[in-house]
């Protein structure tokens, strides 16, 4: 029951940090210039400017991406320690709002209520930037069937328990020439609250129309189907059963057959490139805001080569930091995370989809507004 205790903000290094500020600024000024962002983000190596400890907590989805960022960032800036406690999105936001950590990772952007609380805590607007985008694969286990097309409508009916056998007319119609067995379908969902479930149900509620009548939610809305704990639990359950189908982060579901999702008239497999393309078609929730970069994913896109079942995970932190050292540190770290270099590192380690240049530019601008106060 005891909540994982937040790592204490022990101390920020006592070194003076004027150099760090200029560094952070220079990393930010590189915005779109992709090749130069990497060296500048790790630029601490040229001048030992950054030091101290940065504590974060939240989303488990981001964990391996953050590991990649932390490793690269700490190598470049030897005086820096970055701790990340993957307590889950809700827990991370709670800890940010209580002041226990300097940044939170969350698969859901802050609600207006939470923004209000954060404003009180920070004394300024909270900044939220997307840092991690990943396609969610629909994985299945059906011996003999290696290629499967599913339209959003059929997908919704399968997960709602309306379509119960694999040789149902709806599935057969979308898969001409595929020999489907009469096996019973066992849809597998997450039994824990998760951002993956939120994004999957968000997709179904928008793309499947009347076949899915539940709102997007972090908890599975139905009382049917099979529940499994965590991404690995879903993968294990899908693997173990015959005729199972589930949803999981694409990079974690490589061992399974992944269904092609009907987008427009094409059938698209989950891939980082196709996931990035959806970002181009998505809009910001509050387009005029310079600090709130939460995104409204375009789930109903029909343009070719896009894969709309994606998860966007954010990092949020105060615009006004308690000390200059923390401000410089968080600026440099976040700038690196959203830079094309950081995104490439995450893609390599976590199989995520890189942010688009336009989002990187806007995020860098937002990160750059962090000040000490």
């Amino acid at each position, binding site marked *: *029951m005891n*909540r994982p205790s937040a790592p204490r903000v022990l101390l920020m290094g006592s070194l003076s940090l004027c150099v760090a500020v200029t560094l952070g600024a220079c990393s930010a000024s590189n915005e779109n210039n992709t090749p130069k962002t990497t060296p500048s983000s790790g630029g601490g190596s040229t001048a030992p400017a950054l030091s101290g400890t940065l504590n974060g907590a939240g989303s*488990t989805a981001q964990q391996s991406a953050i590991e990649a960022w932390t490793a690269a960032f700490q190598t470049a800036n030897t005086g820096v320690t970055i701790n990340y406690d993957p*307590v*889950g*999105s*809700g*827990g991370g*936001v*709670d800890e940010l709002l209580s002041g226990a950590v300097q940044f939170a990772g969350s698969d859901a952007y802050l609600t207006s209520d939470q923004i209000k609380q954060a404003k009180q805590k920070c004394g300024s607007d909270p900044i939220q930037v997307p840092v991690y985008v990943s396609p969610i694969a629909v994985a299945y286990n059906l011996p003999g069937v290696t290629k499967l097309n599913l339209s959003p409508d059929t997908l919704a009916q399968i997960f709602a328990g309306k379509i119960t056998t694999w040789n149902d007319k709806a599935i057969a119609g979308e898969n001409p020439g595929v020999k489907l067995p009469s096996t*019973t379908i*066992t849809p*597998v969902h997450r*039994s*824990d*609250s*998760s*951002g993956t479930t939120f994004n999957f149900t968000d997709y179904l509620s928008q793309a499947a129309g009347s076949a899915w009548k539940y709102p997007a939610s*972090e*908890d599975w809305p*139905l*009382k*049917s*189907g*099979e*529940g*499994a*704990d965590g991404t690995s*639990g879903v993968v*294990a*359950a899908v693997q*173990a*059963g*015959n*005729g*199972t189908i589930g949803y999981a982060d694409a990079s974690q579901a490589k061992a399974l057959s992944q269904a092609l999702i009907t987008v427009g008239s094409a059938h698209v497999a989950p891939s980082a490139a196709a996931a990035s393309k959806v970002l181009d078609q998505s809009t910001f929730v509050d387009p005029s805001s310079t600090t709130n970069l939460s995104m409204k994913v375009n789930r109903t896109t029909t343009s070719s080569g896009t894969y709309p079942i994606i998860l966007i995970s954010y990092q949020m932190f105060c615009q006004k930091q308690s000390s200059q050292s923390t401000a410089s540190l968080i600026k440099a770290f976040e700038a690196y995370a959203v830079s094309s270099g950081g995104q490439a590192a995450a893609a390599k380690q976590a199989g995520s989809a890189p942010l688009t240049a336009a989002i990187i530019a806007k995020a860098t601008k937002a990160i750059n507004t962090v000040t000490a106060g």
Partner: protein
Amino acid sequence: MTTTHTERGSRHAPRRIGDRLFRGVATSAGGLILVTLAGVAIFLTYEGFPAFTASRSQIPGGQGLASYIGPLVFGTILAATLALVISTPLSVGVALFISHYAPRRLAWLLGYLVDLLAAVPSVVYGLWGIFLLSPKMVPIYAWLQAHLGFLPFFTGPASVTGRTILTAGIVLAIMILPISTSLCREVFLQTPRLHEEAALALGATRWESIRLAVFPYARSGIVSAAMLGLGRALGETMAVAMVLSVSNVVTFNLISSVNPNTIAANIALSFPDSSGIAVNVLIATGLVLFVITFVVNFIARALVGSKGSSGAVT
């Protein structure tokens, strides 16, 4: 402590200091348990209270607290009962074998191995349950549905992954086996030798002597062993969270993939992504579990105490 100070003179000063020290340590250790328990109870009540006053729509599921906790309580008790039904005969058998049938060396080894089961972390039981036991149970569940489907327990549809509440019950049964087996074994070994020999002298077979002499003597011990096992099964978290496919429903169907969740596993599954009132609700379910476990342990103690004649366990 002040009284001892006045009673005893300075003659025994060296021993007195050691005495006082030891007594102080022992007392504070005992007191610490009470303080901890009170601390947990206060925390659960205080933090869980907002859940009881929250409006229906604020509770996860939107149906109010009772309909949220109800299925969880049901699932907790169902899983623990299944575990008890499976483990009690098994642990009595194992304990009897160790205490009365096995050659001494084998008995020692077996006792050691059973105790070793208790040292296996529950998360390992969880992995074992997911990857080994569950797939193996699939054909059995299919058979149960086909042949005993008329019973409400086996109506199915049988799970194709085997991650059902019956599987969870089996895993729990194995987890509580060590505690109930070692308790039973201790009780059986304390049966007065004369009683057993008297039975044998009257012409009873080995089995009859056990039935006539050992069981009546050990009855309260067996019950309390089962109850202590039940207490552990009620609170077990990780293994259940990993093995069980949950839907927060109330059903006696033991072999389908739609199962009720247990309180402890639900907290583990829901807590990481919960915030606000949802956390209070989880803590309130923890309070309910605390009360259930407390009652079970209380009953176990009472049963042991009331048949004080056996005096076996205490």
